[in-house]
């Protein structure tokens, strides 16, 4: 199947702003699925609320557009009740880690087999440019007009500490990494997290004088580096990209199946 066969064409053009990075994430996600040769009927996409969450409307899978922050909780019910389905959960940074932070760490802790994609543009776009828990200090937003004093989470470190068994990070500049990491994340048996830095030229870019979409993309190239590169040793401020963790741990649904086997024996 071609990538086009995975989308609901009648809803295009999409509602994202010109220059938004979310379309690049969608592209990378669909290419990953195409490469895996998955059937559309075996994929459930669950999203929360926000710009990122609208991705569910555009893909021709079983799609569940839920409530702000709760996508992983809904997804847990879908997955545990039908473990043979592939569950993919794209979320924004506020969705995943502010209002949804508790669900995020507990889904990771259970190591339930699903793929969480954090589309991190460091801002609340749909509500008009407020700071998020991934904005970081110094960022200008409509609710931090004098500069943000809230520390940010490191999604990679948080995911690892919470119990995720596959953790990766890339950016919308590195499009091939997006589809490569998502493909590996879907194949991974356990809770997988892929953080993708994605530009919001409308709010983040404008408020923080980062220029237009192309300037923001170029910046992703400049401020990131592959894991363990020499550049990182010279400049510790660089953000690392790559697969940080990939390990085998007991998966929740498989473990529960063992419980059923035990209970049914009586």
């Amino acid at each position, binding site marked *: 199947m071609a990538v086009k066969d995975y989308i609901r064409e009648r809803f295009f053009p999409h509602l994202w702003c010109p220059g938004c990075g979310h379309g690049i994430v969608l592209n990378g996600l669909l290419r990953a699925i195409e490469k895996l040769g998955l059937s559309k009927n075996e994929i459930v996409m669950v999203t929360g609320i926000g710009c990122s969450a609208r991705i569910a409307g555009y893909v021709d899978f079983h799609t569940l557009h839920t*409530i702000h922050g*709760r996508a992983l909780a809904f997804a847990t019910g879908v997955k545990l009740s039908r473990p043979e389905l592939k569950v993919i959960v794209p979320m924004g940074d506020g969705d995943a880690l502010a209002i949804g932070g508790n669900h995020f760490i507990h889904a990771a802790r259970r190591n339930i087999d699903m793929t969480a994609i954090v589309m991190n543009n460091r801002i609340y776009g749909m509500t008009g440019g407020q700071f998020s828990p991934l904005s970081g200090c110094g960022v200008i937003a409509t609710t931090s007009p004098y500069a943000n004093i809230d520390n940010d989470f490191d999604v990679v470190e948080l995911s690892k500490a919470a119990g995720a068994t596959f953790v990766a990070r890339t950016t919308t500049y590195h499009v091939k990494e997006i589809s490569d990491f998502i493909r590996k994340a879907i194949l991974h048996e356990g809770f997988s997290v892929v953080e993708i830095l994605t530009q919001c030229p409308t709010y983040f870019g404008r408020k923080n004088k980062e220029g237009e979409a192309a300037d923001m993309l170029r910046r992703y190239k400049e401020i990131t580096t592959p894991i363990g590169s020499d550049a990182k040793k010279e400049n510790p401020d660089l953000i690392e990209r790559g697969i940080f963790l990939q390990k085998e741990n007991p998966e929740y649904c498989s473990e529960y199946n063992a419980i059923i086997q035990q209970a049914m024996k009586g």
Partner: protein
Amino acid sequence: MSQNIKFIQGNEVCAEAAIYAGLDFYAGYPITPSSEIAEHLAYRLPQIGGKFIQMEDEIASLCAIIGASLTGHKVMTATSGPGFSLMQEALGYAIMAEIPCVIVDVQRGGPSTGIPTHGSQGDVNQARWGTHGDHSIVALTASNHQDLFEMTVYAFNLAETYRTPVILLLDELVGHMRERLIMPEKGEIPLVERLRTSVREGVDYHPYLPREDGRLPMSDFGGVHRYNVTGLYHDMWGFPSSEPRTVHGLIRHLVDKLENRIGEIAKFREYHLEDADVVLISYGCSARSALHVVKNRRLRGERLGLLELQTLWPFASEIVREKCAGARSVVVVEMNMGQMLQAVKTAVDEPEKVFLANRIDGVFITPTDISNILRLIQGKGV
């Protein structure tokens, strides 16, 4: 055939009745006085191949069962007041997206942490209006274990029939009480199974287009029909819409599908109403004391009757009006500040003849409490 008689706790009755009804997925979070439901199901569900999961909070619990309902399972969660407050967000989602599910609220005293190990009926109006926006809702209750079993099964049946969340509004007293239950035989209580679409693969399926009888056939996630589910106003395919006619049509559908069928949904019991000049109206634990008063007073020749409500919402106004028409006075017996009282006053022809007999200190309302109030109403003094 010999009867299967158990001496059993109310919360366990609810859990066993849910299994009888076909429950095979439960998600919940521990909270007094409902925890025994979760404990019982954690043990029982895997024995029948079902799934139990303890979530990180009540918000996640309701979200998880909604997800599991969409894959074709009969689902339930149970909680008490503070957890029920947290569930209001996802309850609205289940109403909007028309997801069959059962939510048990074993009521304790509130607001806030309140009085966790004592009884109350203070969540009656929260069940009706706890989540935001216009909507209708089904809330059921029971005063004894035999009824509790039947009403739990009924909750699942209504959830499947109307594609709606159903609230089972129990209370600490019935939930923690032990009494006799005659376990119904398999097939004794009819079950409503999920209505699935007969639309074939490749043919356009409309998850949100009601049939002529108002029912909406479903298709399981993972099946051959891929559609969208959202908490936004949506069209017949489930895709977001802000088109005024679509918005208007959807909200009318969500309200009318229940409010137009009150006659079918309303369940109640009546005792000595035929010639009653004092009608007691009660439900849940309070109805036990109310019934005791009616039986005792009848022995003395006093014309008392009881209308026990088993369906609280949607409120059966017509039935209440009719049953109270001949009464000199109507006394609503409940363990709150008069939450059902207001609905009864609105329903009857003469609201000034409606009085409240209540108790709000966490202690079970006794027949003496009710009798004292009756004497005051009748001008006899206590």
